[in-house]
């Protein structure tokens, strides 16, 4: 049966290629849409996980790092460092700002750090070594064609770009990194508000523990001694940011992915239906030769599965290429089209589409009159 099937597919190569190509395109688009969503969630998680620390201290009642305002009292660093089991606590502050160049405005999150919590990995340039230097993410650098050494004016305050980092963006926002030494200068000399008391001086503390100290115990001790703060394990805070991403972005992304799946079923079904309908004559010959309806049904199902199986790897490669293309075009996005769960879901769905599509014309096979072969 398999040999006959392969011969059938090779018989009209251009049509087989078109049908396979259409299914591969459906697979690629679903994987890219899934990859977009997965990428957004990974970016949200990485924002927390890339900052380091064994524990993260936030304002009480705040349980996210991204897109929220957390303000800790200035003296909380000393209070946290005084807790038994804490080796050190590094301050981190985030400020939402808008960068403008030649009339083009882009929202950025400015991370102000001391020794920990800085950029993830440098793409080019060097770490900050001098006053008034900044490291910006590649997405921002490429958008404005900025390089190390260039001037970066933020709210009328002049920074110089020391380096370009990679993977420091989330929630459609690029990150910038400056040192705490420059924060007060920035607040006083920039054209931010007249009253800088409205801006946070300390948002988070990244806590490193003594060797052998238990995270949960130390977290409880910190919360007891600093009532204005909540303490999270980085992985837990990352989970919360991912959960927020799912709530905020999920409905839109899931609706779009769901629609793509529905259209995928329709298209694959229609392609299979048309293919079988176009070969009724051949199937009639087989029926006239004594092959049963069950055999013909297995035959068309196997053909559909074979075509889908050939199309799926092509679709995956297409999705990877599309993802790379999108990321090179717009580094703000992370596209992960080969994440295990979405990939498995898409492959299974594609086989499902193919089977459903091949079963659509089942009544035509059952009602097929073998005599038609001899009448035509």
């Amino acid at each position, binding site marked *: 049966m398999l040999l006959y099937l392969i011969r059938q597919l090779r018989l009209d190569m251009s*049509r087989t290629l*078109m049908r396979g*190509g*259409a299914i591969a*395109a*459906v697979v*690629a*688009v679903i994987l*890219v*849409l899934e990859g*977009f969503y997965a990428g957004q969630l990974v970016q949200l998680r990485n924002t927390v996980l890339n900052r380091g620390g064994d524990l993260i201290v936030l*304002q*009480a*009642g*705040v349980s*996210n790092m991204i*897109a*929220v*305002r957390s*303000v800790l009292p200035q003296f909380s660093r000393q209070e946290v460092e005084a807790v038994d089991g804490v080796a050190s606590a590094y301050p981190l502050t985030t*400020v*939402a*700002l*808008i960068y403008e160049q030649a009339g083009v*405005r882009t*929202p950025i999150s400015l991370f102000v750090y001391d020794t920990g919590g800085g950029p993830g990995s440098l793409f080019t340039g060097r770490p900050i070594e001098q006053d008034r230097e900044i490291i910006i993410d590649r997405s921002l650098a490429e958008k404005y064609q900025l390089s190390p050494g260039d001037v970066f004016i933020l*709210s*009328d305050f002049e920074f110089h770009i020391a380096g370009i980092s990679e993977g420091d963006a989330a*929630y*459609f*926002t690029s990150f910038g990194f400056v040192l705490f030494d420059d924060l007060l200068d920035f607040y006083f000399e920039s*054209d*931010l*508000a*007249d*009253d800088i008391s*409205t*801006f946070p001086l300390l948002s988070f503390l990244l806590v490193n523990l003594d060797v052998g100290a238990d995270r949960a115990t130390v977290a409880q001790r910190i919360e007891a001694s600093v009532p204005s703060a909540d303490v999270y394990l980085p992985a837990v805070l990352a989970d919360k940011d991912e*959960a*927020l991403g799912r*709530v*905020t*972005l999920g*409905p*839109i992304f899931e*609706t*779009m992915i769901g*629609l*793509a799946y529905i*259209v995928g079923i*329709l*298209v694959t079904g*229609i*392609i299979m239906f*048309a293919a079988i*309908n*176009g070969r009724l004559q051949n199937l009639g010959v087989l029926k006239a030769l004594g092959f049963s309806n069950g055999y013909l049904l297995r035959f068309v199902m196997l053909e559909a599965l074979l075509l889908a199986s050939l199309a799926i790897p092509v679709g995956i490669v297409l999705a990877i290429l599309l993802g790379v293309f*999108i990321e090179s075009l*717009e580094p703000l*996005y992370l596209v992960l089209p080969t994440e295990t769960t979405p990939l498995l879901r898409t492959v299974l769905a594609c086989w499902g589409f193919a089977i459903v599509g091949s079963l659509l014309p089942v009544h035509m096979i059952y009602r097929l009159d073998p005599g038609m072969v001899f009448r035509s």
Partner: protein
Amino acid sequence: MTRWMLKSLLLEPLMLMIAIASAASAFLLIIMFEGIFAGESEQIVAYVRNVKADVWVMQRGVSNMHMATSYLPDWKVRQVQELQSVEAVDAILYLNTVVEAGEHRWFSYVVGLDVPAAYAGPWAMSVGRDQPAVGEVIVPEVFAHMAQLEIGSQLRITDQEFTIVGLSRETFSMANSVIFINKIDMEDIMSSFDISSFMLVKAAPGVTPDDLVETIEREIDNVHALTAHQFLINDKKMAMQMGTDTIALMTLIGGALAILLVAFTIYSQVARQRRELAVAKALGATNRALYASVVFQAIAITLASVILATLVAALLMPVLSTLIPAVTLRLTVASVSKIAVAGVFVAITASLMPARQIARLDPVSAFQSGG
């Protein structure tokens, strides 16, 4: 000629229906994606678009609301109120943060209202009050529905509890749902007092928004004033970068798939008629007639597909809006027209490829076996 074109189109009704269904599926995908894009693009600036200000005043250097940080001392609000060309000023203090209700968490724009606010508060209420007192909050009806909240339910912003006293309409969107609290509470949350983020200014009778902008910027130091129209344009531009551009990119990818599928459908439909068209050529039909026939078929199938997809989308959108209230969908004539034009262009291009092969055929081949 027209009769022949119609006849060849309707020669295989089942295959015609398959072609229309196939292309309609592709169009349905892109129409729905466009619907999401159009809906979210409008909803993301719902607050700025709906409040009845003539001019927005903010901190110098700021020119939109989305993701912007603007702080103005309250004495500047009083200075603006005293200007002759000003009829009224509503000052707001706002913050983007996460609100929590039980297990439900949502990213929101929290607007602190200087109560009583004449026009800076919710513009359409579903139920309850539109002026929050201290400790009270007004939330979008959609949010309340999703989190199973009602009037009297509790909600948390940072570490403060609020009681829901009103449910607003048209204030929910993916990126910035708008909730309203009292400005006194907002100052507490931000630990910053006697400040505002924006002034929403109404011009005195006879004063144009442009004149008012000029007056405010001349009379008040270190502020930036914009007409409501310009502020909306700026805010939409910024908000689009924060989410809707992604939807646009996804729509583009969906569109590429739709184009491919439409091209595939039309190509297959025309290619299937190769033999019949070759016979027609052998019987004297000119190349021009053959091209006219395939182009006619391509246009007919495409338009029928777009109409079918639009009808299905029109039926599907209210169902989806009920099932997934967090997604705002909007079917616009502009979107459908744009898709139809692109579809017809793609279909004609795809149909001309097999038609060209037929036009080059030797008419005699039609009568040869297997021709």
